[in-house]
């Protein structure tokens, strides 16, 4: 490095001007910023609880169990959006988890080495696409596709089956829980697969090599060495994906149909917590209505907080196993 006069002048021993006081001030500023991060999370929880208190006081437990969301009568029960959130997230995970593990396996063990980087980036770009784009594509392209090709088939082949029939019967309109769940699944894939890929490649090579030496096939290495070794982190990745799916707003708002009707059929329109808030909040003209929507936000926040905490704890467990502190 070329040291100029200015650079060397910077390196003189500390004078009183740049000494202890400045050091303490800098430390305090950074500590204050760290506290702010903490306060923001606390602030979100408190303000949601405070904003939703009117709804919780008025309806009590019926806010969670009530099936009626009647704006005119000012009666708000959030069972339908809660149900819709859970069902769409479950569909998303059913699709995303096996696919993500497959992608992680492909990228760590199968793909030719030079293609791994580009493919990994392409999959991660799925996470970069704004959710509103997913929503538009879902509404204009994917929902009509589902209505024309997939849902009539489901109706014909699964709709009359004994147990699962009611899930797949109903008008094939494209907008509904199944479509929303699939779109959510696509959105969750990059999050789960990138964590899974990272932990798969962290499995110590000697473990895999021992399995090879014992005559394992590559599938046996995955199922008996890699997955057991990374189990907690893979569960963590799944919960991370769940946290994302539960809170996703715009994509779901476009393709779920904003209907406050309870239906067993996955083909029927429904609602989700986030979509209900996005659709109705600016129209909420009474205190109770607005408070009910904020109470929904509180529920969503608490649930995602718990899910993401579990995710983080599970991921930390593997790190500890690997002897990493961070």
């Amino acid at each position, binding site marked *: 490095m070329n040291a100029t006069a200015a650079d060397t002048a910077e390196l003189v021993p*500390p004078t009183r001007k740049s000494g202890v006081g*400045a*050091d303490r*001030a*800098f*430390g305090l500023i*950074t*500590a*204050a*910023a*760290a506290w*702010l*991060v*903490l306060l*923001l*999370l606390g*602030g*979100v929880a408190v*303000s949601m609880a405070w904003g939703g208190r009117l709804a919780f006081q008025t309806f009590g437990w019926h806010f969670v169990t009530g099936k009626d969301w009647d704006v005119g009568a000012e009666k708000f029960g959030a069972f339908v959006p809660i149900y819709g959130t859970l069902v769409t997230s479950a569909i998303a995970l059913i699709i995303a988890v*096996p*696919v*993500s593990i497959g*992608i992680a*396996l*492909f990228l760590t*063990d199968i793909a030719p080495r030079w293609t791994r980087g580009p493919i990994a980036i*392409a*999959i991660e770009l*799925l996470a*970069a*696409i*704004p959710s509103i*784009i997913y929503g*538009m*594509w879902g*509404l204009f*392209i994917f929902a009509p596709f589902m209505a024309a090709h997939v849902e009539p088939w489901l109706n014909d082949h699964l709709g009359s089956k004994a147990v699962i029939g009611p899930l797949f019967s109903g008008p094939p309109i494209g907008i509904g829980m199944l479509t929303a769940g699939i779109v959510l699944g*696509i959105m969750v894939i*990059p999050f789960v697969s990138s964590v899974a890929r990272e932990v798969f490649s962290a499995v110590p090579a000697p473990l895999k090599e021992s399995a090879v030496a014992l005559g394992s*096939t590559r*599938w*046996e290495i*995955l199922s008996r060495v890699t997955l057991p070794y990374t189990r907690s982190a893979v569960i963590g990745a799944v919960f991370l994906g769940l*946290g*994302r799916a539960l*809170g996703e*707003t715009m994509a779901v708002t476009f393709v779920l149909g904003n209907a406050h009707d309870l239906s067993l059929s996955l083909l029927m329109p429904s609602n989700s917590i986030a979509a209900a*808030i*996005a659709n109705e*909040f*600016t129209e909420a003209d009474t205190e109770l209505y607005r408070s009910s*929507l*904020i109470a929904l936000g509180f529920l*969503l*926040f608490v649930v*995602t*907080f718990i899910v*993401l905490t579990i*995710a*983080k704890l599970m991921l930390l467990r593997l790190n500890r196993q690997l002897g990493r502190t961070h």
Partner: protein
Amino acid sequence: MAIPARRRVADIAAFAFATAATVFGLVWLAWILWTTLLQGAAALTPSLFSQMTPPPGASGGLLNAFYGSAVMILLGVIIGTPIGVAAGTYLAEHGRYTRLAAIVSFVNDILLSAPSIVIGLFVYEMVVRTAGHFSGYAGALALAMILLPIVVRTTEESLRLIPDQMREAGFALGLPRWRVTRQILYKAARSAILTGILLGVARIAGETAPLLFTALNNQFWSSSLNGPLANIPVVIFQYAMSPYDEWHTLAWAGAFVLTAFVLILNILVRLLARRGKN
């Protein structure tokens, strides 16, 4: 010794599945990008960047929305970056090994994945309700809150990557801690932190949910941040959900520009980061 057929079949099936899963993931990416490109390219006109958002049935552009988005993103970065870098510095340097740092690092990861619609509600409760009206300031604050955990995380990670010898060398020269951080560590981590900020910009550029009840939208030109402000994501949302064809076309045009911006930024940043590593 030959591997029994059953084990071989399981092996081949698993690998076929893994390959199919990757193709499955890539097909969606291609489909979404292709749609956006096709619909968006057809909707691109010069008036997109010179005219305001039109009423139903009329032609127009998205100028006011581009402006509003740009201003709110910029302001969000100006608010979120210094706080994020400072907090990240605390986690990696000044508060290293403290309990506060461990808790904040944990909480930050949760904020990173917290539903953005809840952030919007929070800013609504704090700012919009107190002020009595929607505003561009509220929108910028909401975006800053989304950006903050991203900057904290990348700052912490990039500072941790710097070997302790660099710090020790600084201390050996008699530098106080804050000058070691500022003059040695920040310089070494600069490109990594910048990468994080740019990825954060790509993220907040497309955020819709936190703007719905903070910045709202504005059909007309407004340069005031103290009132409702047009922005690309909310305009796309409203126009795409409307029954008018002209609005749909504009929504596709906005979606195209937004997607192109976000993807190009993402790819550029990754290329730069890779070059930095070599």
